[in-house]
């Protein structure tokens, strides 16, 4: 049965500098408090596991670091309902699909939530380390606000 609530998922590895942007953004949201019926999750590793994580939710917001030919720290929004996520910054592992392949798999299996948005933070680096690069760190607040605005929008749908 479909749950009327909204799921927000921060994706990435917080120990790989800018790859932690999605995780840091959703942590910021959770700390600041969210409306009832909004759930926050963190996810790292196999993208296929997202299909289980969002099962039952028909409105999902994902936040992830993305590679794009834009200034590092730029926050972008992509409606995954009809668009694809950007290519992964590193070659994907066969033992854990990346976001793009996982969304394509969910679409093929009819398991993509009816509304699925991606808030992406354009990354600068993927070195080892707990701290994102300065432009990505500076963009976390913007990503958090973008997610909050998306929650408000989806709540009215």
């Amino acid at each position: 049965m479909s749950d009327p609530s909204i799921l927000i998922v921060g994706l990435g590895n917080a120990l790989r500098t800018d790859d932690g942007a999605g995780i840091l953004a959703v942590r910021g949201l959770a700390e600041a408090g969210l409306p009832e019926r909004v759930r926050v999750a963190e996810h790292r590793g196999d993208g296929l596991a997202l299909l289980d994580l969002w099962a039952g939710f028909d409105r999902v917001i994902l936040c992830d670091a993305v590679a794009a030919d834009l200034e590092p720290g730029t926050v972008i929004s992509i409606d995954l309902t009809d668009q694809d996520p950007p290519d992964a910054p590193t070659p994907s592992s066969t033992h854990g699909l990346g976001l793009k392949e996982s969304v394509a798999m969910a679409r093929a299996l009819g398991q993509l939530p009816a509304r699925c948005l991606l808030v992406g933070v354009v990354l600068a680096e993927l070195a080892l380390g707990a701290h994102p690069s300065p432009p990505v760190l500076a963009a976390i607040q913007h990503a958090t606000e973008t997610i909050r605005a998306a929650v408000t929008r989806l709540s009215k749908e």
Partner: protein
Amino acid sequence: MKTRTIKVDYLARVEGEGALQIKIDGDRLEELHLRIFEPPRFFEALLRGRAFTEAPDITARICGICPVAYQMSSIHAMERLCGVAVDPIMRSMRRLLYCGEWIESHALHIYCLHAPDFLGYESAVHLAKDHPEWVKRGLALKKVGNSLMALLGGREIHPINVRVGGFYRMPSASELRAMKGPLTEALAMAEETALWVAGLPFPDLERDYTFVCLSHPDEYPMNRGRLISNRELDLDVADYETRFREEHLSHSTSLYSRLDGEHYLVGPLARVNLCFDRLSPRARRMAEKIGFAPTCTNPFKSIIARALEVIHVCEESCAIIDGYVPPEAPYHVCNPVAGQGFACTEAPRGILYHRYAVDGEGLIQEAKIVPPTSQNQGVIEADLRDLVRRNLALPDDRLQWLCEQAIRNYDPCISCSTHFLDMKVERS
């Protein structure tokens, strides 16, 4: 005379970074190299100076799909060194955790990595578009394996609940009983999987292999026994390095392992062929039903061996849960002993050998890790040479497809073996 070069610069649907290069001169195969270029990872050096108790958690990081194998080989090696033998309940819980990893790894490989090759699909996503019901079954099966790993290992990837001497926490009887329903469903899905893969079109290739696996009279090979082959090998794991040697070839960052100087095959096909009588009753009945009998020497049928093993581990998992009584303590205390510890366990892809030299303080002085993919690398290349020679008339794209399919017979994990694929065929 026409020279052809087939080059796959980056092999898809194998774990890690590798490439394949084939040079054909007219109707003659001139050169074939499976090039593993994933950077060296230095795990063996990283272990030096670390406490013997840290080996399971450090080595688990070598692989995201078979971390349990690394944990099992390292803890068995350390326990052998410390002279600790764990009790039967703890052994069975280790097997149950390993069963979870086999289910997860085999289901992923069968459905997402290998089946698309047989069915003419570029990837599992393409397969899912036409046959979502097949891929859904594979993912449902994988999920049960993941759940088992999360329950016993604390999390699905890189479990954190395994320690030298046992576990940090043993599951409660009710937690395990809750897995019985999903495992019973998984067993049914595993049987459907075996029937499905048995109907795939198999390329024609029969090879004369030396199969190697662990063997124990009481159980299907996983975490104890002697090393055996279909030739004359019958070896205590402590003597592994007297017969098995690794060598470095310039085109690969993975070492090549040889048995008395020759290639050998490890993994599901070796285990099913050599230990068929120890498969679970339902796995054996299924083998009979689909006409699979040892000794199978068509490497493409490894996908059937994998499916039979999934039936086995689902059935064994149910039996372990039925017999579970929580032990008084979750682990045995292991005090450091100076000396060498060895162990070999059966990772989903084949035997995984570990050796550690530890000092009186319990600090690791030396570590040696031989993963299944470096053991299969020589045999993969030999298969490819045979396959290419038989199929020289194929156009490059068909030949490349067949070669990639043949590589995936072994579910190679390049990340594990590096210490992989991009394919190039040159024809002249």
